[in-house]
């Protein structure tokens, strides 16, 4: 509040030219500095534009030669020169959805734990654990998953597949598969996106007015009823934004997924079956690829770029709406 009141006079003091210091080196230096910082700020825009232009240019042969068979082709078999990206898009979306499905309830639980339940002293150690989870490099998740989790997943998945083998729909979704599968990659990915979803969710929960919460408790609500009746309804928009951000992160995650998904581009309803995602396919093959194959891979990068931008822009929009609402109430 106070800072907002102080800002306008500061601005009006700076913007009109001051006759005392109008001439001289100070004004020149100020202009130069302003321009340097402006250029640095614009660098972000330039890089984004360059990414879009150069990658699209390199991917153009694939786009124009293959046309609809590229964007809507149901098979990706590079050895036979068949480049249809649908199986890869399918894998990317499926794995990300699995990750979000598991990560969102956990993240909301952790965020509620931090904001509503935990004592102040416990709070910092919880955030430390989440920060550490965020700090672990993707490739280490991949390494750990590859050697430690895949054998475990293998037996668990087989047990589940056995258990549901006679139930009509479930026996297709949970058919016997392998240790490296959509589900394995999705589960590890869930762990990796918990930090981002948790931190955004926490920010959102912190904006719930203290008065509303106290009022609810004063009316005799239990803590859980207060959370259900006040915190969650107040946060739905922000939560959607957090989920979208997590989804965007999950879609772009590369190495861990590449190590756990089984490298087999296919459209299969079996969550325990092998698959492939767009970033994993690029990562695996780009160095050795040439000609049309390389264009097709770079085209995957373009598609990924576009998809993640759409997801992120809509997520930011939702978070922005929340921001505005907070500023309105403050």
């Amino acid at each position: 509040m106070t800072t907002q009141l102080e800002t306008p006079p500061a601005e009006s003091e700076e913007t009109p030219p001051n006759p005392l210091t109008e001439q001289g080196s100070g004004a020149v230096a100020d202009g130069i500095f302003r321009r340097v910082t402006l250029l640095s700020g614009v660098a972000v825009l330039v890089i984004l534009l360059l990414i879009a232009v150069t990658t699209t240019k390199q991917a153009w042969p694939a786009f124009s030669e293959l046309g609809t068979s590229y964007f809507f082709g149901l098979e990706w078999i590079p050895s036979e020169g068949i480049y249809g990206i649908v199986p890869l898009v399918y894998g990317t979306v499926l794995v990300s959805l699995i990750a979000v499905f598991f990560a969102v309830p956990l993240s909301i639980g952790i965020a509620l734990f931090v904001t509503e339940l935990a004592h102040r002293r416990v709070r910092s150690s919880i955030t430390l654990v989440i920060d550490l989870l965020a700090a672990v490099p993707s490739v280490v998740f991949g390494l750990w998953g590859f050697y430690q989790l895949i054998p475990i997943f293998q037996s668990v998945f087989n047990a589940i597949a056995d258990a549901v083998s006679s139930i009509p729909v479930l026996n297709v979704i949970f058919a016997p598969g392998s240790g490296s599968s959509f589900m394995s990659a999705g589960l590890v990915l869930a762990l990796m996106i918990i930090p981002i979803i948790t931190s955004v969710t926490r920010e959102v929960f912190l904006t719930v007015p203290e008065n509303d919460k106290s009022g609810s408790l004063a009316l005799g609500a239990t803590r859980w009823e207060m959370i259900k009746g006040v915190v969650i309804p107040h946060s739905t928009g922000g939560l959607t934004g957090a989920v979208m951000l997590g989804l965007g992160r999950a879609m772009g995650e590369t190495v861990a997924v590449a190590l756990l998904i089984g490298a087999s581009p296919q459209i299969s309803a079996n969550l325990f079956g092998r698959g492939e995602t767009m970033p994993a396919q690029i990562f695996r093959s780009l160095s050795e690829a040439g000609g049309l194959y390389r264009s097709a891979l770079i085209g995957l990068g373009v598609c990924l770029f576009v998809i993640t931008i759409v997801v992120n822009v809509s997520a930011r929009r939702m978070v922005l709406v929340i921001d505005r609402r907070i500023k309105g109430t403050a």
Partner: protein
Amino acid sequence: MSNTSSESTEQVFQSLTSANMSKKRRFRNAAASVAMVGAFLLAAIPLFAMGASVLSRGLGVVLTVDWWTQPIPGDVGRADLAGNEELCDLGFGDASECEAGESSTSVVEGMQPAIVGTFLTVFGASVMAIPLGILGAVYLHEYGKTGRLARFIRFMTDVMVGVPSVVMGVFIYTIWVLNFGTNGKSAFAASLALGCLMLPIVVRSTEEMLKLVPNALREASAALGTRTWKTTLKVVLPAASAGITSGCLLAVARAAGETAPVVFTIGYVTTTNFSMRGQNTTLSAQIYSQLTNGGSIATQLAWGAAVTLVGIVLVLTLTARAISSRLTIGNT
């Protein structure tokens, strides 16, 4: 302020719960609390399990001097075979090596090239991204403020944070490696990719820190007749330096752990290359390639590289946390 009020509501809440309340409601409330703690444990337990397995598998090799001083062993697959006496008896492996009794222990497990490469690429990326990012944030907060361009840049920076790292790699691959051929693969190219990754993170975290600098400082400086550029350099940035450092360290940690943008921009070497030019390798790239090599020695190298990389990242992250926690105490 908010703490005292929440504590008082807590007391009211306590008195209410102990009084008459239906068992069902009390049970639901308790179940929800248990679920929240459970959610945390479900995230924390895998983290500790991962930490334990990385340490137990990789720490041994990292504690040797060879690890930090020797080149990466080349043909680890063959060494694996040579060390396996049963396979030798069956006629597999190189006959001469079998006769010589050369064992897998004779392989010197070193990782110096990757350690040097990691520091080189991250250093290069930092030199490019940190000054640019800080200046960009200065524009957003000190000049652009809520203007149209500044708002657009801010929005696009947020979007750029979400661009997958593999796309940054593809970008540098198309703009650099494809133009310069195999010679283009170098620590410098990897630095460019990591720099693109770091830039938006640095811009956003620096701007958040500039927001924390009290306006009174800027006004006091302006009242003394100081120009904005001088105020920014001599007053605002020093005041925010701790927070900016912390944000930059987190960006560096993020870059150090990245694999995807590095693998196709840096190439591969097994001997130490101290130059920004020419092919190189990093710890993260080594973890991936040793893992795909397979075999017991390669696996050992991968776990060792993981311990080293996690160690570097942890030091950076914890330092950043320590700096920023001291900062918040100073502020309140």
